[in-house]
């Protein structure tokens, strides 16, 4: 990504919402399968429900300035997802909303990613290395800050959750048996990062 500010006009926001929602809806079965292995098997369905609600409000959301749109998306996810991923992803979007201006620079993105990481970490009472979405958010943030490809970093980081042992959430009940499966939240985070990055790179 260049250091020039990205313009988040209504058309860009519409495309971002379409891309993010499309990624969650089209991968719902895959996310559910991952969650059936180590969780309670509802992650795909929950994310689909949440992003379908976001999609239903797409044009109203896209008409807002970027921070307001992000905050509204976060609240919709909080209210509609129906699992722990609702407050976790909701908190992520609301934290981004607090840090980003309507036309953010790359530095602002990195700062916002830091704030979002800290907020999700606090919400989930979790940390790096515990087989969660945090294990994807941090490497993606670091790649962005270093001018590397955040999508490649996110995908590699999601893969890297496979050998990890879960200590948070329902997967933690499985102990050693959580090893050998990709964390569903890490996968959904990588999918969202890839979907939104593609829109921004192309704009």
């Amino acid at each position, binding site marked *: 990504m260049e250091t020039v500010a990205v313009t988040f006009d209504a058309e860009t926001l519409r495309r971002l919402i379409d891309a993010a929602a499309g990624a969650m809806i089209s991968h719902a079965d895959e996310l559910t399968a991952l969650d059936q292995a180590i969780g309670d098997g509802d992650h795909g369905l929950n994310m689909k429900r949440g992003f379908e609600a976001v999609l239903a409000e797409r044009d109203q959301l896209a008409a807002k300035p970027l921070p307001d749109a992000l905050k509204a998306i976060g609240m919709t996810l909080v209210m509609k997802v*129906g699992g722990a991923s609702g407050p976790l992803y909701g908190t992520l979007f609301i934290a981004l909303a607090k840090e980003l201006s309507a036309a953010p620079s790359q530095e602002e993105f990195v700062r916002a990613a830091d704030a979002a990481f800290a907020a999700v970490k606090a919400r989930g009472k979790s940390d790096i290395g515990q087989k969660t979405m945090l294990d994807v958010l941090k490497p993606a943030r670091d790649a962005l800050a270093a001018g590397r490809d955040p999508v490649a970093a996110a995908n590699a980081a999601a893969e890297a959750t496979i050998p990890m042992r879960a200590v948070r959430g329902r997967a933690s009940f499985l102990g050693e048996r959580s090893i050998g499966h990709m964390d569903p939240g890490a996968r959904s985070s990588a999918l969202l990062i890839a979907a939104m990055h593609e829109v921004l790179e192309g704009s």
Partner: protein
Amino acid sequence: MTKINGNVGIVIVSHSIDVARGTADMVRQMVGDGVPLAYCGGNPDGGLGTNVQAIMTAIDQAWSDSGVAILVDLGGAETNSEMAVELQPPERRRRIVVCNAPIVEGAVMAATEASGGAPLEDVKRTAEELSPV
């Protein structure tokens, strides 16, 4: 009736509406009507899961000036309950606690403590005595 409003309220949040309702039934039978009590369960579509809006409504229903203790079953119920607490007005927020306790036993113990007029911190501590360290 004035006494009831003074007692800490109990909110039960399960992934399943049947578990939540059954737990509330047990509290009512064992502890009686001396505490404000509300429950919720299920995701926004009515399937298994939890729902921030429903938790906020339950907090309203069980609200007491002495505060509200929330009993939860599994991970998402806790995270969604914490989110629901944060969405409350600031003056309410510090008078709501999420108990780290098994939902059925915790709800009965918390309600028993609350029905005697105990303050919120005692209600929480009593429920949490049931948790493995």
